């Protein structure tokens, strides 16, 4: 669809302004990628915005073999996978009950979950620390999974109910005539139909879980249990004083997996994150 024509000159000006915005926005990331290929002499001898003179891989060698990046990566993956499963497994049936099973308290139940969207995580952090400490959950995956499942539920339930209430009841009734109970209807009819909502929920939560800082910084103190963002901090802090090349390489390794997923699924990621933010 064409917008109303505003002349070639204006269109050129628009492109220029957009390009400046986009370059400013992406420059830090491009810069860190370029710098990660600079050798020691390059880093010391040239200005920081210069391009690398040669394609040097030594930084990556150092970053991969002298750190626990692989372990951090694994921790982040496990936490993200289990948290996402938890959010969906707990959230989806609740949304189904709220939107498709008639009972008196359904509206109140939804409202009860929506309170959670207003609660800042910082308001719960101290008791959480206390509870996890007493239960021996600190430095276990559960200490990151539990809070993120709990705080992920309101948005998940809200998004699912938003979709499910518009699914025509006739579909459920037809299934009921065929003898299907609510569980079967939920699993066989509703869940496959709600695929788009599921994708939105997964993407929105994945990005925030993968990048999560506060819980990981509070509950994970053992080196082997750190997630990627926290591990990055330690590593960069430790290497940053003497070895910038390895530091840049580490940052690149940490951001590349998300970037790859993003470039493949960019439309879903942008829409999912926007929908998640708006619904929150």
């Amino acid at each position, binding site marked *: 669809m*064409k*917008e109303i024509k505003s002349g070639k000159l204006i*269109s050129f000006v*628009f492109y220029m*302004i*957009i390009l400046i915005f*986009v370059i400013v*926005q*992406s420059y830090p*990331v491009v810069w*860190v990628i370029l710098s990660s290929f600079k050798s020691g002499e390059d880093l010391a001898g040239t200005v*920081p*915005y210069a391009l690398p003179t040669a394609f040097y891989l030594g930084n990556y060698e150092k970053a991969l073999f002298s750190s626990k990046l692989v372990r951090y990566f694994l921790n982040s993956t496990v936490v993200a996978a289990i948290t996402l499963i*938890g959010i969906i*497994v*707990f959230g989806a049936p*609740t949304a189904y009950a*709220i939107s498709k*099973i*008639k*009972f008196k308290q359904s509206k109140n139940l939804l409202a009860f*979950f929506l309170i959670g969207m207003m*609660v*800042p*995580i*910082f*308001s*719960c*952090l*101290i*008791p959480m*620390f206390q509870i996890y400490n007493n239960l021996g959950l600190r430095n276990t995956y559960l200490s990151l999974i*539990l*809070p993120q499942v*709990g*705080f992920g*539920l309101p948005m998940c339930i809200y998004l699912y109910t938003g979709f499910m209430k518009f699914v025509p*009841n006739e579909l459920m009734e037809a299934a009921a005539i065929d003898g299907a*109970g*609510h569980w079967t209807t939920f699993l066989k009819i509703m869940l496959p139909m709600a695929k788009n909502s599921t994708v939105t929920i997964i993407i929105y939560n994945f990005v925030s879980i*993968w*990048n999560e*800082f506060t819980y990981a910084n*509070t509950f994970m103190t053992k080196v082997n249990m750190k997630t990627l*963002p*926290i591990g*990055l*901090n330690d590593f*960069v802090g430790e290497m940053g004083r003497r070895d*910038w090349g390895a*530091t*840049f390489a580490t940052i690149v390794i940490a*951001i590349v997996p998300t970037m790859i997923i*993003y*470039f493949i699924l*960019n439309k879903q*990621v942008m829409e999912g*994150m926007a929908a998640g*933010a*708006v619904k929150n």
Partner: protein
Amino acid sequence: MKPKYKLEPWLFSLPAILVYIGIVIFPLIWSISYSFTDWSGIGNKAFIGFDNYIRLFSDKTLWTAFRNNLFFMVVGTAFQLIAGLVMAILLTNITKGSNILRVVYFIPCIISSMAICKIFEKMLSVQPLGVIPAIMKLMGMEPIAFLSDYNLSLIWVTLIDGYKFCGLYMVIFYSAFMNISKDVVEAAYLDGCNWFQQYRYIKLPLIKNIFFVVLVILVNGTLKGFDVSYILTSGGPGNATELVATYMYKTAFSMSNFGYGSALAVFILLESLVAVGIVRLFEARSHKNE
């Protein structure tokens, strides 16, 4: 649809209810009860009534943090709102390449605040020279260590936080503009509406709801601002970039002052409830004025 038996809906929702109560509601209530105690995390909690709340009022660091947080909120919200809106308007007005440009513009949103902070830490560093001081030198200026400058560090923290998220608001505004019916715009064009008038009188009023949604997200988010300040400057130099959340976090977890930290946690809760309430009030008023 009717349940087969009375308890059926609860069977569907009970696991979620239990998890949610245990993880969100229970600690929240507990936090409130801790705020009436003097407690270091170990040993006995001494009930001290409203003492922690009285202390809030005379706590100079808290008011500095609160003032910083207001600056962080106002400047951060304005910056992200304007950057997102302007970018969305520009992008809806070009025909070629808008997709790839949006994808690139959005990149910082998917990167962890830790990685972003580490990149900017290096870009802003003076010793060894990072990009930004190097450019200043190139232009004949004396490089400034922005992050350790008492007056300038807060604005950098605010802008870096805004840098990370403004792509998100571009996407939200962009899809709002795309959802405006072409007929309305076409009709306005035929009536002689110029480009600027289209936005002033038609498109912007039509996306007013989205505008307020974004405002709520931004106000709410910036009031709980934590990551960038904590990672990049740890609230310093002095208290120059201290925000309420970073102050609460340090009070509880660095100084083991769990009782007072809990009072600060309650303060954060009330603060964001009040702020969102104010935005909603403005929204209601703007609808009434129509």
